[in-house]
């Protein structure tokens, strides 16, 4: 995509306050044409407020919203070329599926014949052909959200806004709907702005992820980047469920020598050459091996010793929490393999040096 192209959505220094509470603090963002972008963050981080500002349900305290290059900051929702799929299926209970989907077209006074064609096309797109006459109560939760999707897309919006549309669905339906959303996005080429607190969903769906925390943007990037190269300790914890350890870095020949409590280990990671840092260790980058009983503290070698504190079977593998002396929190670790370690097993902890990231840390910065 050429950088000169007008972004579909452009947010300029958007700040939003509810009374004394700052929900969004100086957020700027560009969404490109045809992009699937996800606003990810814990509840209360401002992501839904931002979506509602784009839709027009909230007017930002400061800043501007542009859709297709046009300033719509003061435009009411009914005159914005954006349509929304809500968290709960908000189908009109007194109308059947056809009339629900046709709602926007009727208001726009689209000719009758075109309404028929477009509603049919739209329902076919979400694989609900033949459901025109159904009533709400004859639909499952997943089907209702598909109708809501069809009802939004039938208006050919410049941007489709999705506010946690899958969060009310069962896991199985949710996974099916994820695949459906990817397909619908491919087939329509529409621009999707998606809000979720589920990092797995964000990683699975998006072209780019915007990670929010406390009203601000922590990182913007492709799922692989956000996952492998978190920009902040928050992103590392929230997106990768990573271990984030306060360390001190000393330069050395083979990489970075990192002091970790009583331990000194070598990691290959750029970012910080010397001084205080955060060491990010992804749980699946950690390997465990059964260690002989003995000292729990490694004697200065690469291996770190610990004890299995907790074990959970995950189907595809196992997750453990390992207590390592000298560390405040147990290490989170995910491994494949048939034979799990047992609680209390002494283990030798090692890790893939590429699974490490060093992030700058201000000395004495609190850990979380």
């Amino acid at each position, binding site marked *: 995509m050429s950088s000169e192209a007008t972004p579909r959505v452009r947010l300029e220094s958007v700040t939003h306050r509810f009374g004394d509470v700052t929900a969004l603090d100086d957020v700027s963002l560009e969404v490109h044409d045809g992009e699937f972008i996800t606003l990810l963050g814990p509840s209360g981080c401002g992501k839904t407020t931002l979506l509602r500002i784009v*839709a*027009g*349900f909230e007017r930002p305290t400061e800043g501007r919203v542009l859709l297709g290059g046009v300033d719509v900051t003061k435009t*009411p*929702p*009914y*005159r914005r070329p*954006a*349509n*929304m799929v*809500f968290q*709960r299926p*908000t189908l*009109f*209970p*007194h109308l059947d599926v056809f009339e629900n989907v046709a*709602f*926007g077209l009727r*208001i*726009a006074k689209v000719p009758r014949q075109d309404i028929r064609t477009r509603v049919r096309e739209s329902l076919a797109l979400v694989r609900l052909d033949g459901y025109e006459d159904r009533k709400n*109560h004859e639909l499952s939760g997943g089907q209702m959200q598909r109708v*809501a999707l069809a*009802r*939004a897309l039938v*208006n050919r919006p410049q941007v489709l806004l999705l506010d946690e549309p899958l969060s009310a669905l069962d896991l199985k339906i949710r996974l099916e709907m994820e695949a459906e959303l990817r397909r619908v996005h491919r087939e329509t080429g529409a621009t999707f702005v998606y809000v979720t607190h589920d990092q797995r969903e964000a990683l699975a769906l998006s072209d780019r992820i915007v990670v929010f925390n406390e009203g601000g943007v922590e990182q913007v990037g492709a799922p692989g980047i956000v996952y492998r190269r978190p920009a902040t300790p928050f992103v590392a914890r929230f997106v990768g469920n990573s271990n984030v350890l306060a360390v001190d870095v000393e330069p050395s020949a083979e990489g970075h020598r990192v002091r970790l409590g009583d331990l000194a280990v070598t990691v290959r990671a750029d970012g910080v050459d010397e001084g205080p840092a955060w060491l990010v260790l992804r749980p699946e980058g950690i390997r465990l091996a059964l260690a002989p009983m003995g000292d729990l503290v490694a004697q200065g070698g690469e291996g770190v010793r610990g004890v299995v504190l907790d074990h959970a079977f995950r189907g595809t593998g196992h997750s453990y929490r390992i207590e390592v002396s000298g560390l405040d929190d147990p290490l989170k670790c995910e491994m494949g393999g048939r034979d799990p370690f047992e609680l209390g097993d002494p283990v030798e902890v090692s890790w893939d040096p590429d699974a490490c990231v060093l992030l700058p840390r201000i000395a004495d910065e609190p850990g979380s």
Partner: protein
Amino acid sequence: MERIQRSPITGAITLVALVFLFVPLIVVVLFSFHETSGLSFPFQGFSLRWYRDVVGSPQIREVGRNSLIVAVATAAVTLVLGTFAAYGLSRASGRWRGPLTLLFFLPLTLPGLFIGLSLLVFFNLVNDQVVDFKLSLTSVAIAHFVYVLPYFLLIAIAALDRLDVALEEAAADLGATSWTVFRKVTLPQIWPVLLGATSLAFALSFDEFIITFFVIGPQSTVPMFIWSSLRRTVNPTINTISTLLLVTTLVMFTIAFVLTLRGSHRHGEDADILSDAIGGTQ
């Protein structure tokens, strides 16, 4: 273990209460069908002669028409103004909603005597100092509107509060202006409840006496007619008119209940709005 014995006194009191409630009512209805003009037992056979008298009497037909005009006018005005007031109140934001709603509900707590008297004073004031306004059926309808509006609002606001606001946002998002949202999304969901509340307004107005007593002009309504007839003589036609009044009111209340119940059941909820709304004031 033995079951806790219910006191026989409780049962007796309940029975006495029921007797007090229903025996006078039954007597009135029964004697409206009496063959003779006597109003005491023994009962001497059924006849529809008093009903024929009532239907044939031009005077009674006129007061019946007056009551109907007042009740229909009251119900119609309440439906239109009450719906907008309820919508405004239920969608009003934070700070103003509480005090405003309280103001609208205040007449519920006022004695009818006070409402009647104050409206009489007000109408006289208007007549003396603003425009020529004589007491008439119009003044009765206005007074009834003041009296029934809070009941209508209670039911309508309860129904509106149960609607999902996200539906209205969804409609706005799909291009509907607030007027279109109201017409195409809000109204279709609550019209049965609104009609039920309108029936209630009709019923309340149709047999209203105290307030009417203060603001009535030269014309008369059914309750006024019954009262003034009783001052002269106890005539069996009074029983008949009372029975007709009772039936009309009962029918309208039943319609009100059925519609408000159906209105809430349509959206898959068990509780009915009417009892909810009335329960909420106690």
